């Protein structure tokens, strides 16, 4: 059983297009995250949602909009794609990090290539 799944695994698109990446977790976790990993393997957090509510919003262009229809899903929509958006995007989930830090479970990643 896949704990954290993402679709699609690969996404190739042209500049200016709008695309979405979907994420689902079946672990019963309250909190979900989106990370971006660039070509130098630097993994940077973008957003964090707890039970459909945004709790972390790093300095990310507003072309990126996360949407959480329920606590098991966190989708990432990207408008007007740019070359610099090319990266691997990872979704993750964990218990709510309120009084402690918990391990995060990562999805397999979505490799986005903007041409």
């Amino acid at each position, binding site marked *: 059983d896949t704990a954290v799944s993402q679709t699609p695994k690969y996404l190739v698109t042209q500049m200016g297009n709008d695309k979405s990446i979907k994420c689902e977790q079946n672990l019963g976790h309250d909190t979900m995250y989106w990370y971006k990993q660039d070509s130098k393997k630097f993994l940077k957090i973008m957003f964090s949602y707890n039970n459909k509510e945004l709790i*972390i919003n790093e300095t990310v262009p507003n072309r990126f909009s996360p949407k959480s229809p329920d606590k098991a899903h966190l989708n990432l929509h990207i408008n007007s794609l740019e070359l610099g958006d090319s990266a691997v995007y*990872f979704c*993750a989930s964990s218990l709510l990090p309120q009084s402690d*830090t918990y*391990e995060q479970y*990562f999805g397999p990643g979505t490799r986005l290539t903007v041409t």
Partner: protein
Amino acid sequence: SQQGEEDPQALSIQEGENATMNCSYKTSINNLQWYRQNSGRGLVHLILIRSNEREKHSGRLRVTLDTSKKSSSLLITASRAADTASYFCAPPNTGFQKLVFGTGTRLLVSP
């Protein structure tokens, strides 16, 4: 926000040897996590060590934490080719709410 900084950036060893990688961080923490990332995959949690623990073991992994030096180390004993991966440390930030990863240590274990 602080991130863990791993050292060395790359490490190449033979199967059977031990691999040690280090992590430094800037501000006080109450725990620190280590993750592994195989090529083309998501990160996998390895171990969490708390500030009141100096050392923790999990199978062939040994993690130490020195809060006075703000550093941690991950030792993999009797390494195998399957240990080839990038290893990241992640101190918590913003009151536990997020982890900030560095660029990791790329470990290559040759048969």
